């Protein structure tokens, strides 16, 4: 597929454009935002508890989204929390994609015992739900950002592994692979130059879809105090903190929840858009 067609499809796909623009805005917000905020995300200010959102009535200096139970500015925490959420999701997605793809390609290409072992490993990880495994491991290892990342990688590499293995199995049987084998190509040449380019499209699609997922699992773990621990803000632990005051000060839950939803929605839009744009079956 030529780049001109892809570009044309990008411009025409509503999902892609909405997703792409929103994602860009969120990323900029998370990367640049923390340097501009006025308040300290972690410093308590007990005289300013539970202030209602002022929106922009006091300009950017005010408590735009109000304050929480410890008097910390909600907007500041949201911006700082965004940086953590996105950074963790990025690290996890990249690592698990690399790990999973390598294992999957090895399994698919070598077959035999390597394939059997890796596939049974996938089965094992698929039969333990992500969240339960993460909870168990973190419960034992203790709560820390490193452990959070490790656990998230452990629970998300399988998808990539299965995807790349199945694709390698299909591609391996194609005639062009046999042809280059006949011409004396080495295994690594075949894997990286012949097979890998054929699975990149699907990998890109999976990555863009999984990104939002990782954010959601991270939020769930942080909500249960197994992820990023307070006072460092994350959207998950902000929701957890606000839960007690759900009926009295609902914005404490609604604001981070909304941010979470919009972010994941934007990445899902992007994922769908990418899938539409790269769909080889589309006429």
């Amino acid at each position: 597929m030529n780049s001109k067609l892809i570009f044309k499809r990008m411009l025409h796909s509503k999902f892609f454009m909405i997703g792409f623009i929103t994602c860009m805005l969120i990323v900029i917000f998370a990367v640049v935002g923390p340097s501009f905020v006025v308040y300290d995300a972690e410093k308590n200010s007990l005289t300013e508890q539970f202030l209602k959102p002022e929106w922009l009535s006091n300009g950017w200096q005010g408590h735009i989204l109000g304050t929480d139970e410890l008097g910390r500015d909600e907007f500041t925490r949201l911006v700082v929390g965004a940086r953590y959420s996105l950074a963790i999701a990025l690290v996890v997605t990249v690592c698990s994609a690399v790990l999973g793809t390598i294992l999957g390609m090895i399994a698919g290409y070598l077959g035999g015992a390597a394939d059997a072992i890796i596939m049974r490993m996938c089965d094992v990880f698929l039969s333990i739900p992500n969240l339960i495994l993460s909870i168990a491991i973190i419960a034992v290892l203790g709560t820390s950002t490193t452990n959070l990342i490790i656990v998230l990688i452990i629970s998300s590499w399988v998808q990539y592994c299965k995807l790349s293995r199945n694709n390698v199995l299909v591609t391996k049987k194609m005639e062009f692979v046999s042809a280059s084998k006949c011409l004396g190509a080495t295994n690594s040449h075949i894997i990286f130059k012949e097979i890998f380019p054929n699975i990149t499209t699907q990998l890109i699609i999976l990555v863009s879809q999984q990104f939002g997922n990782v954010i959601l699992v991270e939020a769930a773990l942080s909500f249960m105090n197994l992820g990023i621990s307070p006072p460092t803000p994350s959207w998950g632990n902000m929701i957890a903190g606000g839960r007690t005051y759900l009926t009295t000060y609902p914005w404490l839950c609604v604001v981070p929840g909304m941010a979470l939803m919009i972010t994941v929605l934007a990445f899902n839009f992007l994922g769908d858009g990418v899938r539409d744009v790269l769909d080889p079956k589309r006429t």
Partner: protein
Amino acid sequence: MSLLEITDLHVQYRTERAVGNALSGLNLTIEKGEALGLVGETGAGKTTTALSILNLLPSAGHVISGDVKYEDRSVFEMSEKELLDLRGDKIAMIFQNPLTSLNPVFTIGEQISMVIRAHEKVSRKEALERSKQLLEQVGIAGSRIHDYPSQLSGGMRQRVGIAASLACNPELLIADEPTTALDVTIQAQILELMKNLQTQYSTSLMMITHNLGIIAELCEKVAVMYAGNIIEYGTVREVFKYPLHPYTQGLINAIPNLEGQRDRLVAIPGVIASSENLPEGCPFHPRCEHCSEICRAERPALIKVAENHYVACHERSGELL
């Protein structure tokens, strides 16, 4: 009144990448009881013709102008109900690839009896019983009626396709390259079967193929298609003996001769015209050795050159008239 009459049919495929003219002014008639062969290269518009007859073009396909009349009724003006009565009952179709044209999650018995039950008021049991007879008629043991398509070989699946198309005793059978996806030995069996069934049921047949041998075997009339148009039409005997259009001549010269003196095979130079970018004038002119000025400018019409022989070529029709 002809059984089927196609007049000046233009069909376009509009996709994201381009607009393709699949059919550009096709004219064709089939009489009752007649067996017509439709021959041409891949992409000449044969399958599009077949799907237009059933008014079943895919969503990208649009009929621009022209008409398809079945017993003097335009299929494009028929109500949904009339179309349902037409499809499967009056006109049945055999598809090219038996591996993809049977639904993998229904038994072959269910797939044959669904046609019967769509057109006749019979019980499920009765329909299955008739499906069994049909299967036996096409050479499959009736006991396999509860098998799924995946349990049958390609040739057997095509037999199932034939059985399903004959289920309601249609007046016109459209066979879209029914043997292309099969082994040569199986091809012969299937053709033999179709020949017998056609005489037995006395249906009209439209045989779509790119194999001239099949047409010589099964058909009385032949229509040669090139780039969405009929370029030569007539009885098989006449057209095969005295091919007039350079393209038809090319097709016939490309068949190896097994008897008598063996000459070198002559290939038609160039490739088939792209439907997205048809040449001006006669669509065949870039490949034609007799090409003259008029061929580049004007599209030739189908002209009668003899009783039962028509050709669309400036060179030939001018010569003979």
